[in-house]
């Protein structure tokens, strides 16, 4: 899968001009090598390793299997939601409402369970609610042509409000032991918590769809240039509609997972989660304007954030203050590629300028000689 995942991102940062330089000037080869090493996923893997090293030096328990499963479990819902969110952002849209859908799902689950319905009935009902919520987002954002930012800001309030209406301020607990075991327990013989299975399966499936099928190619096309995609026969609206439905469904599933892990269902579940979800997606190298990104990057970013949160917790830093770190990380993950791009084009210009005789061509106009 590795090779396939790297293809779309690689084509985005085209190394071709640097390779041409490589035949001539020795510095050109340097640029090419730096360009290849500076692949976002590689960079992210180094950051992750650095954080693991930092965590291990902070506390002796960091590298224990028990801590590893805690570290994953603490953010597993966020990671699960980040996967469909990555697809939505690649397609050039955004869904801010997922955190409220987590709350609505938990509320509906708690309400149905408290009303005496068994979980085998309640959970499918919750998933239907999630899909319907996603459908609402999708219909408004694609068919009515409204900007997804405002639509999902509206449903962010709507879903949270409905969650409060359904369950009120109470919390529902006393779920059957198997349900809690799913949330707390680990897969026998491994330190991996059960919900990680959902994350892993989803990552594999969505990774394959995005990087290995025509659906993924159409998605990238739609994100890069809607008009061009539409003219080449991509049914952009229908595809985005399905993505929103998927995001709603997965967010509801994450709400169920959260209820299982906390052994309690509350209307305020998932509050503030959107920030972390979007941070994971953008840190994973998905372009906020759409058209570029890999699931591998998102998975790496998920582990990075999990380790970072855990390391901060081991260093006794309050969770509210961790939000500063996440906010900074979010901004940095968008700033760095922009700066790198500017640096690269400045370097290209400088190299070209050296070879050309004192150019009359201004820096703005890239006239081809």
């Amino acid at each position: 899968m590795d090779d396939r995942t790297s293809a779309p991102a690689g084509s985005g940062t085209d190394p071709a001009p640097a390779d041409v330089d490589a035949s001539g000037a020795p510095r050109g080869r340097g640029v090419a090598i730096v360009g290849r090493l500076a692949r976002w996923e590689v960079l992210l893997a180094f950051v992750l390793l650095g954080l693991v090293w930092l965590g291990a030096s902070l506390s002796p328990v960091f590298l224990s299997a028990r801590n590893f499963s805690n570290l994953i479990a603490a953010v597993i819902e966020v990671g699960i939601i980040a996967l469909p969110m990555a697809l939505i952002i690649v397609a050039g849209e955004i869904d801010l409402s997922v955190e409220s859908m987590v709350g609505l799902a938990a509320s509906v689950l708690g309400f149905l369970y408290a009303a005496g319905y068994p979980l085998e009935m309640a959970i499918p009902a919750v998933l239907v609610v999630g899909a319907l919520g996603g459908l609402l987002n999708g219909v408004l954002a694609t068919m009515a042509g409204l900007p997804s930012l405002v639509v999902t800001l509206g449903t962010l309030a709507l879903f949270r409000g409905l969650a409060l209406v359904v369950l009120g301020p109470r919390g529902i607990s006393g779920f059957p032991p198997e349900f809690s075991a799913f949330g707390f327990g680990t897969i026998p013989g491994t330190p991996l918590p059960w919900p990680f299975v959902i994350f892993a399966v989803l990552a594999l499936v969505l990774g394959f769809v995005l990087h290995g099928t025509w659906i993924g190619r159409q998605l990238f096309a739609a994100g890069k240039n809607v008009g061009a995609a539409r003219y080449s026969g991509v049914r952009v609206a229908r595809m985005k509609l399905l993505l929103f439905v998927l995001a709603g469904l997965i967010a509801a599933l994450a709400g169920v997972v959260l209820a299982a892990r906390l052994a309690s269902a509350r209307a305020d579940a998932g509050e503030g989660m959107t920030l972390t979800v979007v941070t994971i997606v953008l840190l994973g190298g998905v372009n906020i304007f759409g058209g570029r990104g890999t699931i591998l990057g998102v998975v790496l970013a998920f582990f990075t954030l999990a380790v970072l949160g855990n390391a901060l917790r081991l260093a006794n830093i309050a969770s509210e203050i961790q939000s500063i770190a996440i906010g900074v990380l979010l901004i940095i993950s968008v700033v760095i590629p922009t700066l790198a791009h500017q640096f690269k084009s400045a370097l290209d210009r400088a190299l070209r300028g050296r070879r050309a005789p004192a150019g009359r061509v201004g820096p703005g106009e890239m006239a081809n000689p």
Partner: protein
Amino acid sequence: MSELAVSARPAQPTLLRRLILTAGRHREVSLLVVMILLGALVAVRAPQFLSVSNLTQVTTLASIIAVAAVGQALVIITRNVDLSVESTIGLVAFVVAEILSARTLGVPAAIAFGIGLGLVLGMINGFVVAVMRVPAIVATLGTLSIYRGVDFLLAGGKQVTLTELPSGYTDAATATILGIPLFVVIAVVILAIVGIILRQTRFGRQVYAVGSNPEAATILGIRTRLVVFGAFALCGLCAGVAGVMWGIYFGTINATAATGAVLQVVAACVVGGVAIFGGSGTVVGAGLGALFLGFIQNALIIIRLSQFWLEAIYGLVILTAVAIDAVILRRLRRSIGARSRG
């Protein structure tokens, strides 16, 4: 191809279509009409809705949101959005309360410091968006949590209570000028100032130009990024004023003050006809939008509907407003297209 269909339309505009178009062009007027109808409806069921004390309460609270919404409107007109306003309001409210409770500064200096802090936070947003070229949604989602984190860092678990503040400080919340609540006067003054800036100054016209077509604005020689920076800075300034007002109104402030207020602020703009597509809208609309949301909240309390409905209704209001915007935009484009062809 569709020439026939298009040109046939405006020849005989139905009454309904004309009504929709007129209402769309004058969102402020139609919002007022809706508010009066709604007020009448609620007043029939609960006459105390129209009492002076109730109206004072509604307008005072709405004034805080209106001040923040005026700043937000500026940013939205430039085709950006500032999600961090609620953290700015919360941080300013706490810092001012903390300064006053520790008696480090006098009341006027503390208020000035709070407003200045808002301006600085807005300038940080502007810097990240305009200079570092981070899309506004990402930048302000980041600063939303950064500013709130700083708030927690400063406050820890503690809160500043009413009794720690200088006596008489919070009286401003109930003060009136000629029978009009002071907060309403402040909101109207700020609304007027920003409204004049938008209509009469070069910067104001540039704000609209940048929002309706950034590329064209750049070609015309407008320094787009500077304008966007200015809009964010002013938005921070307004949020700073709103933060000071928030602190005065609620008296007791902790690190979670104003959590979730951004929805009301953005909703006020959207309802008031500040198009999220950028380039159009007025601050009067944003102010009326804030008043409208305040009325709804109050009406819920008066007709004894659970407050839990409030957030859901805010959501519906936002969705309805953008949907109306989109419909009107489409109609307008169609009729303009037909007119220029005919």
